[in-house]
Every structure is written in C-alpha cells, then in structure tokens.
C-alpha cells in the first residue's frame, strides 16, 4: 500500500514538534477525514531556518508532514510557496489513490504558516 519512503517518514518522522518562538504558524484541518496538522517555523530574511510539525492523521498524513518540512527547510518562502501537494506526494514515491487527499494537508499547512509569517511581518 505505502511506499518504503512513506513508511520511513512515518516511522522516523523528521522535524516533529512545536517551535516555541516561531514567527510563522499554520494549522489546517482536513475537512474530508477530520485530520489536523500544525506547522511552526522560524523565518529569517524570508528564509525558513527551522520548521516543525505536529499531525493527527493517518500514515500518509504523517509522512507528508515530515516530507514537506524536509523539502522547505532552508528554502526561501517564495520557493516554499511553489511546492505543491502533488510534489510532496511525488517526493514520497507516490501515495495510494485513496490517500491522495492527505497530501493536500501538508503543503497547505506550510502555506498557511508562511501567510502567518508575512502577515506578522507587515504588521510590524
């Protein structure tokens, strides 16, 4: 069902947790299946220096969360905004069809966190 890469990211998820002094936080819920993902990040000069996630969801949801944090860490926010849900699924070697909606969560949560960062920045 799941690729080895998905299982790897599920068993050894990268960047799990919550950053306390984050300046970008995004949380999305998957209305379809009731799952929740929260991303917190530290952005300096529009570059994502640190990022962590917390996810309540299935194997695919956890793996895509982990994957997306790896993909955007060290990237500029603009580059991160370009990373699509499909790209995350692809980076994991594909997801079962029934699980494709789970990957929608991961990129969306990152995008939300970036929006939060930009909003805070413009307020200051």
């Amino acid at each position, binding site marked *: 069902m*799941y690729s080895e890469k998905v*299982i790897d990211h*599920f*068993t050894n*998820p990268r960047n*799990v*947790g*919550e950053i306390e002094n984050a300046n970008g936080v995004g*949380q999305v819920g998957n209305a*379809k*299946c*009731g*799952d*929740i*993902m*929260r991303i917190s990040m530290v952005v300096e000069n529009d570059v994502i220096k640190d990022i962590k996630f*917390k*996810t*309540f*969801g*299935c*194997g*695919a*949801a*956890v793996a895509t969360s982990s994957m997306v944090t790896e993909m955007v860490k060290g990237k500029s926010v603009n580059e991160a905004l370009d990373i699509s849900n499909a790209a995350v699924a692809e980076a994991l070697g594909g997801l079962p069809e*029934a*699980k494709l*909606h*789970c990957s929608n969560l991961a990129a969306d949560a990152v995008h939300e966190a970036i929006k939060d960062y930009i909003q805070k920045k413009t307020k200051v």
Partner: protein
Amino acid sequence: MKRIYLDHSATTPVDPQVAELMMVYFTEYYGNPSSVHSFGRQVHKAIDEAREKVASLIGANPSEITFTSGGTEADNLAIQGAARIRAKKGTHLITSAIEHHAVLDTFKYLAKNGYEITIVPVDEEGLVSVQDIEKAIRPDTILISIMHANNEVGSIQPVAEIGRIAREKGILFHVDAVQSLGKLPIDVNQMNVDLLTISSHKIYGPKGVGALYIRKGVRISPLVFGGSQERKVRSGTENAPGIIGFGKACELAGQRMADENIELVRLRDKLFDGILASIDRVKVNGPRGAKRLPNNVNISINFIEGESLLLSLDLVGIAGSSGSACTSGSLDPSHVLLAMGLSHEVAHGSLRLSLGRQNTDEEIDYVLQELPKIVQRLREMSPLYHKAI
C-alpha cells in the same frame, strides 16, 4: 519478528484440519455434485454432511440451510429476497444503525427502489433497544433485520426478544450472526429467527462461503438465476470444497466453543485491564462483561489517529483494525462508533483487537508492552495532545 494476529473479526486462518479436508476435494473428489456419476455422487454426499454440520451448530434442519458465497451475499439474499417477495404485503423495513454494511447498504439500495426504511438508533454501549424496534413497527412492516453481535464493538443484541415481537406481528426477522457464530450459542428456534446469516471465514473455515438459514415455509426471491442448485434459491455450481470446509469448521466450533470462550474472555479482560492501567485517556467502546463478544476489545485512544496506530503496531508485528476514516476507503470514520455518540475525533482513534483460538498470554503481554510506547510516540506527534494537557 514476532507476528501477532489480533484481527480475527476481519478473518481467521483456516484450521489445518479444514484445509486438509478441502485438499481432498480439490484434487481427488472433484466431481460436480449435480452429476450422475460416482465422481459427483461422492461430492453430493459430502455436501449433505456439511449441511448437517452447519445446521446442527445453529439448531436448524439441514433443509433450511442455503449455501452462498459468504456473509455479504447471504445478507443481501435475505433482505432483497424477502423485500421482493413481500412487496405486495408491505414495503417497510426496519434495521439498526450499527449493522454491517452488507445490511445497511442493502437497506439503502431498497430505500432508493420503492421501499421505506427505518434505522433505529443504539445507546452509548452499542445496544439496540427492544422498545425502539417495537415503536418503529408499522402495519406495512415486512422485515426486521438486527445483528446478533456487532463486528466492531462486540455488543450482543436482544435478538430473541425482538424475534418474539416480530413473530407476534407476522413480520419476518433476519439476524446477521456472522460475528457470533462459534462464539455464542445460537438456536434459531429460541431466537425466533426466520432468516440467519453466517459466514465461514470468521470461524476458521475458508473465505468465499457462507450460508443463509431460511426457516421452513419462508419464501424469498433468489438473487441469481441459473442451474437451480440449492433448491433454486441459489444457483451456480456448488463450491463443494468450500462448503465441505465450512461444515468441518462448524463441527470444530461446536466441539470447542465452550472451552475456547473461557480462554478468550480471560485474555480479552487481561488486554482491557492492561491497557486501561497503562494508558490514560482511553475509552472502552461497547459494553464490558457478558453483553460483549468473548473475543472483542475495542477502545478509543484520545489524541491519536487509528491508521497511524495500526501502522505502528504492524511495524512491531501486531495486526489489529480501526474504525478510523483513513482505513475505511470512504472518508467517514466508523458508522458504528458515530452511532454510539462518539465524536469524529474520538472515533478516529479507535482500535479493535479481536482475539482467536491461537492467541497466547505471551502475545497479550507483548501487546501490553508495545502499545503504550506507540501511543506515547504518536501523542507526542499530535497537535491535539499538548493542548489538552
């Protein structure tokens, strides 16, 4: 790695005695039971014997047993078959909110095709109330379908009482006994049942075989037409090895049930008690004690999601199941847990461990050692957990 199978409500291994017997009918006695020649007659006789064994486990007459391809087909045959033949008498049918999809989806199909259905609710333990059924009955009610024991939470329903009421009102009563066969005593007469569904692969028999008990005198329309096998109720070349294997599985279940249940109840309660002692914020789904199947454990573990839990368990060799939406193919969590009043979130974190004949104390100990660690890890990953503390 150890591999511990705790998903016996999904399916069971075939008992070695059953497999061995079937083997003979694959390669040696392979005739078509409808044939005149000795290759066929031998098989015909073996099917008759299997029919007796199946009948005997549920207190029925062999002529009241119709073999099908499984529990799903038997449920459909009972419900569609009764609905079609009684359509002139009435078009209202009653069932409960926690039935298997084979029943519920058949009801929904009928609801779109000229029938009216009432789905009675259950209480927070997953029990149907006899009063609710009684209140749902109308003059045009033709069928009531209530399961004997629920496949997810193991709750045992008051079928005999419901059957008595149905009998009084002249309404057909169908019982899905797929999960209770071989685990609870079944007597179609005491239970006042007209139609009863059973399935082989849940009792250490082969997959792809089941049966519908049809009380003598009760008529139903067939679903499939053809060679007139099974007294025309179910056409198609008989799955002889499967039927014969099912017969053997019923015989073994009858012999072993009493002893086995004592052991299952002991392991079940050890599992429950162990989990409740080592993990906080755990909810037992379904009743405890005598109103629960001897082999069923079902809990909701707050703040974690079922599929992640199953995957983690699988990685340490433990096989279970969950009512999580992420395992269901559809996007909703278990309709059974929702009907019992659980929130989506809590239903998502459900875990069913269903015990079987071969499970041991050491296996349960291993689960009790691994599960808390996994829960801890997943909770640390969960955005819901810290908020809650």
